[in-house]
């Protein structure tokens, strides 16, 4: 009879707690490093957040980036970032948000004055820049299209105003913070406050190092990346909850076992599941990475990192931290009826 593949022998006994001080230090360095990187090197915000213009164009023949760049430079539209995107013919053109000229502003003001009689000075000062800006973006897109000439196809054009961009950043931060907080509350409710706090620390660790990685490598950070960060949070908490569940169960069963030993045992007993799940999720993410096309590449890269860091943080951060949390072992697990039963088992 085929009994399947047992990748991790069931009697594996790795002393995960032994090196926890080293992993704590390592994590601390990563977190602080990430914060410093984000603060000083900064993130390469995509148009979603920074505002500006993004065009994905396909040339009739393999695109010559150098030639394209010099063509675009003549338009004096500010710095144009060019990037090969998937096929050799396809190029991403990223333009900064276009500043408007005094002439734009004057034209917009004239237009407003005629469109709205009796417009007040305040109103004019408020609206004229908005109109001028819009005009400037339109003109930039049109200028690029004229400069490239016929033969190009425009696969994608995105224009995001600076106001929307900052709102999107705000919403993204809010979504992440609320999600982390919500998860913490849930874990607190299901276990003990110590578990909730540790979980939050581990999640913060995962999210901030992911963002830090983006700052380090300079990958574009956009809305899809935020989705990836939140998914990483979800994945990591999934991982953490599985091991916490086991820790709680073992705490009820082995009341006298030293905590460090018990934590290590819990991790060992769930290790084959951890390896299986991480491995399988990694497989599907790698499929997205290699076959999902350029648009999803950033997402898949973030997820690959997230699976690794999420698994690491559960084993090396969230669990060992319990040693220092003054856990009241008699209280743990009373919420769950079947834990009682498990505890009374020989």
């Amino acid at each position, binding site marked *: 009879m085929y009994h399947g593949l047992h990748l991790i022998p069931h009697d594996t006994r790795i002393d995960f707690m032994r090196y926890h001080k080293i992993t704590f230090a390592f994590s601390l360095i990563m977190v602080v490093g990430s914060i410093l990187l984000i603060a000083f090197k900064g993130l390469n915000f995509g148009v979603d957040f920074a505002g500006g213009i993004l065009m994905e164009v396909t040339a009739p023949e393999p695109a010559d980036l150098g030639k394209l760049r010099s063509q675009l430079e003549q338009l004096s539209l500010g710095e144009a970032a060019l990037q090969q995107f998937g096929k050799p013919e396809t190029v991403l053109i990223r333009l900064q948000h276009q500043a408007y000229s005094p002439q734009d502003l004057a034209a917009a003001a004239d237009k407003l004055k005629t469109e709205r009689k009796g417009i007040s000075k305040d109103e004019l000062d408020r609206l004229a820049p908005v109109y001028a800006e819009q005009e400037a973006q339109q003109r930039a897109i049109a200028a690029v299209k004229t400069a490239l000439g016929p033969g190009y196809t425009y696969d994608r054009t995105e224009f*995001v105003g600076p106001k929307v961009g900052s709102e999107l950043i705000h919403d993204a931060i*809010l979504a992440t913070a609320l999600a982390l907080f919500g998860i913490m509350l849930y874990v607190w409710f299901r276990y003990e406050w110590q578990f909730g706090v540790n979980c939050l620390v581990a999640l913060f660790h995962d999210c901030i190092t992911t963002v830090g990685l983006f700052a380090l490598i300079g990958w574009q950070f956009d809305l899809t990346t935020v989705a990836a960060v*939140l998914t990483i949070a979800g994945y990591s908490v999934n991982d953490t909850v*599985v091991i916490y569940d086991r820790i709680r*169960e073992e705490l009820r069963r082995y009341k006298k076992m030293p905590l460090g030993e018990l934590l290590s045992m819990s991790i060992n007993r*769930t290790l084959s599941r951890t390896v299986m799940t991480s*491995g399988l999720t990694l497989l599907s993410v790698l*499929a997205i990475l290699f076959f999902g096309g350029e648009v999803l590449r950033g997402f898949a890269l973030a997820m690959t990192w997230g699976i690794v860091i999420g698994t690491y943080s559960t084993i090396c951060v969230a669990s060992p931290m319990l040693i220092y949390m003054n856990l009241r072992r008699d209280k743990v697990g009373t919420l769950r009826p079947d834990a009682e039963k498990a505890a009374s088992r020989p």
Partner: protein
Amino acid sequence: MVNFSKWQTWLTLAILVLGIIFAAPNLLTQQQADALPGWLPHGRINLGLDLQGGSHLLFQVDIDAVVRERLESAKDSLRDVLRKNTINYTGLAVANDTVTAQLTDPSTRDHVLSLLRDSPIGVTVQADDSGKLTGSFSDQEIRQLKGQIIEQSIEIVRRRIDLEGVREPTIIRQGDDRIIVQLPGVGDPTHLQELIGKTAKMTFHFVSNQIAGPSQQKPTNLPPGTIALPSKDGGFEVIETRVILTGENLLDAQAGTHPTNGRPIVNFEFDSSGARKFARATTDGVGRRFAIVLDNEVISAPRINEPIPGGRGFIEGQFTPQQTHDLAVQLRAGALPAPLTVLEKRTVGAELGADSIATGKLASVMGLALVVVAVLITYGLFGVFTNIALMFNFILLVASMSLLQATLTLPGIAGMVLSLGIAVDANVLIHERIREEIRAARRPVMAIDAGYRHAFWTIFDSHLTTIISSGFLWMFGSGTVKGFAVTLILGTIISLFTAVVVTRLQIVLWLRRARPQVLPI
């Protein structure tokens, strides 16, 4: 956990069959799906703009402009009321969202207030003892006004897009003062953006006969009741502020060509009350010039040669055929209460969309294939059960998305793949736990029972936390990210069902038939 009553078994099977039925239309083309008999489900998953190509526009409605306009007109009404009743006042003005005026004689205060009660001017006016009048909107009025303006704007935008013949547009309100317009299949929205965003407020006035003809310089020292507006032909026209007719009186407007000189024009027709007013005005004003004003610009000011009784006319000006077409559409759809500005614009070409579907499919199929093989190698027969459950996970996800008419975006495909990962995890948790229970020397039935019992809460917790985080993503995410959150939430809920029920049902049915002494896991 190893008991399945008859009705539980049948209920589960019924859900699975329903899943297949609701997912099936996605295998058909649109025509085939439409041809299905009415009692069969034919909802299909909508493809997001990033997959089918099209344009996404985010408009800001300039509501403050309307509030100001309303205040201006309240100011005019107040002036009329005071003048008609020969009440002296000074300093009539609009400032800081209020209309203010100072009565010369404070004792006329009560009289003025009672006059305003009889002929309201749109704002609530209050007066203090010194005779200072202040009129403003209450917060509730402002809220109501804003709601009204945005609803009205959406309606007008929808009519304009419909008249332009764009198929299946999505027009939704976002927040207090924004409108999202999604136009599938529109590769270059520049023209539509112009068409949608213009207020297209049209009014008809007499040209003032106290000042001779159009002038190049903006005239000063205008007689009361007149205003100078720029003319499309250049220069300025001085027109009477009194509005004779507005675009709201129009019944129809069509682009056409001038009968004699062949230039592009817009033919229009008034409704019956408009036609009457138009006939009276053209009878009274023979020999005068009649100004057609669009968004505070004089488009044309033809001389009235004879009364026009039928309520029909045309607008002539420096137009291209495209412009007359747009103007006709805008006039038929009605004027926007407030101008719209574009905050965000995203366009995806149809070709890129098709590419994205292809790569998305490839990634899903490859991911699924890798997982299926790995599960099979690791868990043997139990792996087969898991893979069947995974297949149903996918089918049910497609079915529920079709049922909810959810939109599939490219990140949504990633969400699907990820939710399959979560479903796999649930199965792995159970199988690993069963293995542990076997090592604890339990008999097969007991091992499976204990395995499920112990794994259930772990699975429940891990699924719920995923739902919590993707719920926030759904609430605060925008556009394609929302699509990702929706698929992930649905996929997670379904995964809970397939892992706990579908896999278990298979194992239980197998246990009953095979009665194994040793579990093949």
